[in-house]
């Protein structure tokens, strides 16, 4: 589902697997690419964190808890319907 040429506003999430100074190796579903941490220097990025990478620069750390929360809310709605709750 990824574009061959990256559109300018699409940032892609990947997992940090290695950090060497300001440069991280980021795993995008099996493809490893280098990303600069210059723009997230104050976010305390660690190995294992997910980051959004855009044109070779990480632009933020991805907050997995936030993702889970929004899903949990909707699963509850759907679950309530399927369970036949009033």
């Amino acid at each position, binding site marked *: 589902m990824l574009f061959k040429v990256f559109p300018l506003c699409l940032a892609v999430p990947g997992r940090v697997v290695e950090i060497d100074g300001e440069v991280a190796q980021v*795993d995008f579903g099996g493809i490893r690419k280098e990303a600069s941490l210059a*723009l997230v220097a104050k976010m305390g990025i660690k190995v294992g964190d997910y980051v959004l990478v855009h*044109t070779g620069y990480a632009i933020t750390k991805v*907050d997995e808890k936030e*993702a889970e929360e929004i899903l949990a809310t909707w699963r509850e709605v759907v679950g309530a319907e399927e369970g036949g709750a009033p």
Partner: protein
Amino acid sequence: MSAGGKSILSPFRDRALVERVAREVRGASNGEACRIMHVCGTHEWAITHAGLREMLPEGVEVVAGPGCPVCVTPGGEIDAMADLACGGAAVTTFGDVVRVPGRKTSLAEAKADGGDVRVVYGMADAIRMARREPGKGFVHFSIGFETTAPMAAIEVGRGLPANMSVFSTHKLIPPAMEFLLRAGIEVDGFICPGHVSTIIGADAYRGLAEGYGKPMVVAGFEPLDVMLGVLEIVRQKRAGIATVSNMYGRAVSQRGNELAVEAMEMVFERADAEWRGIGRIPGSGLRLRREYAGSDAAVRFGIGEVPADGMPAGCGCGDVLLGRIRPEGCALFGRSCRPESPVGPCMVSLEGTCSIAYKYRDKMQ
């Protein structure tokens, strides 16, 4: 979270869940019309690719605004870069812009004529090239909204190689939204661009929500993200409220990436900017501050303001960019204007509404 396979994002692509939220939209709209605009090429791609428009109830409409930076880049700037590439400099830029026609030529044509045009993935690549070839002059044609401006800012702030400069045609999204609202565009709320918001923060839209009484909802790029954004706008409209709502908390904070914003403010100043097919938008452009004149290609090569320009004859890109028509409403769409033989920039850029509509035309009725 991985790009493919099982990931935390998979449920955000779960069709049943998205359809459930679409039913919620139907209930919330209660038959009332609601016209929603997004201003991001990636949102347009997500909406079209997932067929979200077809899931919406009648009357609830999502239209694309000027969310494609390549599409709104003035033709005169493309010509100026082509001239530099043919005049001995190496021009680096993103692949998406190379085929876009300027007023006289495109960078692809300049390259075919022997010009030195090089596609890069990002600013760091361009810097590496310039370091490898210190005897050659490099100009980075720096395009994009708030998602790409911070990279140019941080690198210019740190100092570019002496043989390199930047031509900034960076543009800002909130001034463009305000321009559309002032012009009285028919819209009930905005889906705010996800990754622009990662940089500037959700708070950046507060003035627009309050000043113009329109819901401003930040949304991500998975089908569920977009549908939740639509639902939030429909709900706010029905409730008669207009606030900023951040539905993309996993990547967007209230204040954004402050380091990136500081870098942009340090290196750039705001200027009025020409948006191709739309016109001059006050305070919507970023040019390098005088302190960075040594890194500014506009200063080094004396590139002045370019004239306002429209789209090629018969091309409806201008109306498409303002959400006045869908691509199918343009007489050229799919006939003389196709991705392999594009007439206007909206068919060239991967983020262009027309190229997206053409690619996924089978999905649409």
